[in-house]
């Protein structure tokens, strides 16, 4: 069994279950460097996703587009826009397919990453969620099953946070606080790490 609309539904449910405490944490973190709204974006975004999760179309591409649409309806923040961009780009990769092998996940993430670079204008190394995506793509490449992927993703996420923590933010709202950002995790990176954590069986 590969990735289908059910996989997406399950992912939404898993994250949505824990999104409230994650949101609080991300608001605090974003507040130290930016405008403190990342958690609001996450909570509202996943509330919207919950609303559509049972009506996703079979076509994986359309399903990902529908998710993008419901995420953009919360609007306004960089993270929301970039997440929607990522979902759309991934969706285009798998248009007209209702099931794709897990081994295609890194390729989908790569398409997402490329689109986010194009839309947001940041580069790798700027200490953003892009760097997190990049580590994940490397870590998941060549793996075949979700069972292999989850621990690899977790490890990669932790290592990425560690390696960027003492660097300055180079783009976005946090850039003006570049000095202050040294020693702090980037909120977007951390948000992705927390979402990965949601897939651990309790």
């Amino acid at each position, binding site marked *: 069994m590969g990735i289908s609309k059910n996989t997406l539904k399950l992912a939404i449910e898993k994250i949505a279950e824990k999104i409230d405490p994650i949101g609080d944490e991300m608001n605090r973190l974003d507040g130290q460097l930016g405008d403190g709204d990342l958690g609001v974006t996450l909570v509202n975004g996943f509330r919207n996703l919950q609303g559509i999760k049972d009506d996703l179309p079979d076509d994986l591409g359309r399903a990902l587009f529908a998710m993008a*649409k419901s995420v953009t*309806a919360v609007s306004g923040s960089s993270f929301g826009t970039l997440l929607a961009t990522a979902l759309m780009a991934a969706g285009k990769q798998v248009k007209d397919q209702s099931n794709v092998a897990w081994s295609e996940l890194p390729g989908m993430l790569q398409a997402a990453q490329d689109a986010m670079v194009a839309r947001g204008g940041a580069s790798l190394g700027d200490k953003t969620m892009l760097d997190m995506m990049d580590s994940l793509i490397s870590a998941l490449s060549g793996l075949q099953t979700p069972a292999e992927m989850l621990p690899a993703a977790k490890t990669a996420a932790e290592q990425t946070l560690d390696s960027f923590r003492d660097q300055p933010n180079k783009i976005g709202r946090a850039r003006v606080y570049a000095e202050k950002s040294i020693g702090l995790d980037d909120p977007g990176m951390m948000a992705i790490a927390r979402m990965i954590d949601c897939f651990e069986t309790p």
Partner: protein
Amino acid sequence: MKKLINTPENYVDEVLAGMQAAHPETYRIGGATGRMLHRPAPVPEKVGVVSGGGFGHIPVFAGYVGDGLLDACAVGDVFASPDMNPMLESIQFADQGRGVLCVVGNYGGDRMNFDMACEMAEMDDIEARKVIVADDVAAAGPDEAEKRRGVAGFVFVTKIAGAAAAQGKTLDDVVAVTQRAADNVRSVGVALSSCTVPQAGKPTFEIADDEMEIGMGIHGEPGVRRGKLRPVDEITDEMIDMLLADKPVEAGGRIAVLINGLGATPIEELYLVFRQAKARLESAGAVIAMHLVGNYATSMEMAGASISVLHLDEELETLLTAPANCPFWKV
């Protein structure tokens, strides 16, 4: 904050309700969140023309829904881009199988969200293209013209797009002539007082009682020069100088001129600006083929005025003077 409103939260939606109530023959509220204004029915067999942007600039953007203008328009919060969804809804409403042109002001959020909306539309096999309006010469030099803000020139560009579509042109042709309009329009404004975003509750910027700012943007973005208020003829001269320096008129060159009030400026004063602008443009050799004087692109209660000049060719002039009809502009 001295406004005739109920609550900041309901401001946009209540104004839209008032617009629909006043002009149901032209405006209908639509979309899942009520943030699309569209014509009662799409016009078959033509390229769709849509726009979208922050609120507080009436008639820009949604006020230009009407015959020979926009088919639909996405509506954001005050001075904030709509999200992608009402943009997509507008594209879907306007599409009649021949594709849709999105006329978009050059603001990050508007562009990004329209990009996404166009990609989304593609998924529905709708071809949606963008023309960016970036006409404010005060915002950046000619070498960085792509960084200029979209201001009142939007009105001319939208008119061209709407008329081209109404003539039955293909999407490629509508895009081409609209792009030419966008390339040939220049604007500059002067602000005398600030506006207040309802949610913010206090003026967007401070400006002394005897000061003006030449080149200020329609959300209060900094201009090129803040200085003492001077006689209207001198202010107009300075603005015309900026416009002509950026794109000179040829002798006999035909142009369209818009003297635009920002919202709180008496119409009397706009006629003073027109009087001098006309004299200056004509003495520079231009022929004013068409002109507008009034509140066509506002910033709520901001006082001030802007001048837009569209350099015409034959096709642009034909399209600009073709019939159009919305509650704010009848041609």
